[in-house]
């Protein structure tokens, strides 16, 4: 289907239910999430821990099954077509990088093994032998200068090197989309930029889409062109990265941006009430209402819909009106007919 985005989610939801003998509790980790990633585009999904962003990543990587909603790859509804298990074709298109560079590599296997498997499963060696293909992908992630790297075990590498191996493994499958779940949060500060630069250059050279999950606004701003802000399973604001971070509209986004330590020392004061956290999200209405300094009466009962502020910029907040148009994942500002 031409013109369709590379990846699109519509109303994606995931509810975790825990059943004990006496009680049953459910947590809506992801609630009605809709967005799109175009080929070669980098989209950032920003939120705190518990916001559901990692669950979104796992849903797209098909490690979990959504409770509701659709995932479309190149316009094709993936969940409907492959209900129980992701097909090899899907795995070929969508790869994932995990947060912890140590636990994402099997300690009993060498670097070469990890990469060979990826090449073998997806048959991406082409004219090269498998070992040559492994060397090629190591070159792509700039690890070829490390002597004997293919025969090393993960524990012999630094955090940054391991994360490059994880990227190489994803790359060896020649995917169209890479989902990166906090790829730099467990790395040293001086190493983070290198990894983000690597992802950026790979994206540009090969037109790979990137969904970057992070809690660090600075990374989102640096690496992505479009950012979505997530809170308690819902997307509250969406827009071009630099614009959204420079001029946040939603009270939660303002709180996030205002809490980042500033070098200059100049900071906007943060509302006291908003800092008090720890309460579970209410069942109805806006999940941020209990902490919001600008809370209105309808915030407790009605979930605000989308309000478009500009082309590809929208916010879900009663301060901007009740909204209500169906979310347009392409972020183009047009009403979606349905």
């Amino acid at each position, binding site marked *: 289907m031409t013109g369709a985005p590379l990846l699109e989610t519509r109303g994606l939801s995931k509810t975790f239910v825990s059943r004990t003998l006496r009680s049953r509790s459910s947590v809506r980790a992801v609630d009605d999430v809709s967005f799109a990633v175009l080929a070669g585009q980098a989209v950032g999904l920003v939120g705190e821990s518990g916001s559901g962003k990692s669950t979104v990543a796992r849903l797209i990587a098909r490690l979990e099954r959504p409770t509701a909603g659709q995932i479309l790859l190149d316009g094709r509804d993936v969940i409907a077509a492959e209900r129980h298990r992701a097909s090899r074709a899907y795995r070929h298109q969508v790869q994932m990088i995990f*947060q912890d560079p140590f636990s994402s590599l099997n*300690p*009993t*296997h060498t670097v070469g093994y990890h990469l060979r498997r990826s090449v073998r*499963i*997806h048959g991406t060696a082409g004219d090269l032998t498998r070992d040559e293909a492994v060397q090629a992908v190591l070159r792509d992630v700039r690890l070829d200068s490390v002597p004997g790297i293919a025969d090393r075990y993960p524990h012999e590498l630094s955090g940054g090197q391991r994360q490059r191996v994880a990227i190489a493994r994803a790359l060896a499958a020649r995917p169209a989309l890479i989902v990166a779940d906090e790829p730099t949060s467990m790395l040293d500060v001086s190493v983070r930029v290198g990894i983000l630069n690597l992802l950026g250059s790979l994206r540009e050279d090969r037109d790979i889409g990137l969904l970057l999950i992070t809690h660090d606004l600075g990374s989102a701003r640096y690496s992505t062109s479009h950012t979505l802000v997530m809170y308690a399973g819902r997307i509250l604001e969406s827009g071009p990265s630099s614009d959204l971070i420079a001029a946040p509209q939603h009270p939660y986004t303002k709180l996030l941006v205002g809490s980042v330590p500033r070098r200059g020392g100049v900071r906007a004061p943060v509302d006291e009430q908003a800092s008090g956290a720890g309460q579970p999200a209410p069942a109805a209405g806006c999940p941020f209402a209990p902490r919001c300094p600008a809370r209105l009466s309808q915030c407790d009962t009605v979930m605000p819909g989308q309000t478009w502020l500009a082309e590809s910029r929208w916010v879900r907040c009663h301060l901007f009106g009740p909204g209500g148009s169906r979310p347009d994942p392409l972020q183009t500002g047009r009403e979606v007919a349905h």
Partner: protein
Amino acid sequence: MTRPLSVLRRFVLAGYTRLTASRKAVFGALVILCLILVALLAPLISPGNSQAVVGPENLPPSAAHLLGTSGQGNDVFAQLVWGTRNSLAVGFVTGVAIAFVGVAIGLSAAFFGGWIDNLLTLLMNIFLVIPGLPLLVVMAAFLPRSTWSVIFVLAIAGWAGSARVIRAQALSVVRRDYVAAATVVGERPLRIIVSEVLPNLSSLIATVLFGAIGYGIGALAALQFLGLGNLSTVSWGTILYWAQSDSSLLQGTWWQFIPAGVLLTLACTATSMLNFAIDEITNPRLRTTRDRVNFMVRLARRRREQPHAA
């Protein structure tokens, strides 16, 4: 550039060095090896039929009969030597069977989760709750008297403990990111179980194996002592059975039961020692300072001898 073979050699060297540095491991391994040798060389050590009547009953140890004669007139030493075969063989086979079943069931329960896990755990719990020895007795009483049914009975009574241990550890391994990563890369479930999860349980499986072998040797002897084993074979357990039925304890003919008891104890202790040693190798907190010093000194020495391999 290091080749895979030299990487393997390095790994084996470190493992061997660790094992030999641990006094427990050395003791256990030596004892087991000696017993295996005895079993293999039985025809050389004590030629002839061990169940033949060679003289008057209840003779004390002498030059002609190193450990005297039994209540039936058999040479006790010959019985002991030949009996090692049965005891060790059945013990090993039982151990391997239990480890195999335990790993298969424990891994499946952990990996698949859901109703499969619930069902298998229920099964494990049932077999754990049923008292072992009575179960052994009841099953042995019903089944035909052969070595294979003995192995079967021992395995049925003993698999659940190993399965539970494997399942517990596998549960934590299955939740690691590298298993999820393997799924995302596109590996099939069976391949993930065998190639990703299993290698990370290898030390636990080794421990379970040695524990099961020790159990096999001991429980076999218990069954045979109660007269429920295959009485036509010669084994440490049957020696004890005949000693009991011939009232050796009352008669004071100690050579008819003490040597068999000693060998049994040695064998089980040796497997336990190997068990602990493997635990120590994999769990650094259990290592003693002496083992550590030994290991470091030896590794340094070996590295000096083979600098290119280090």
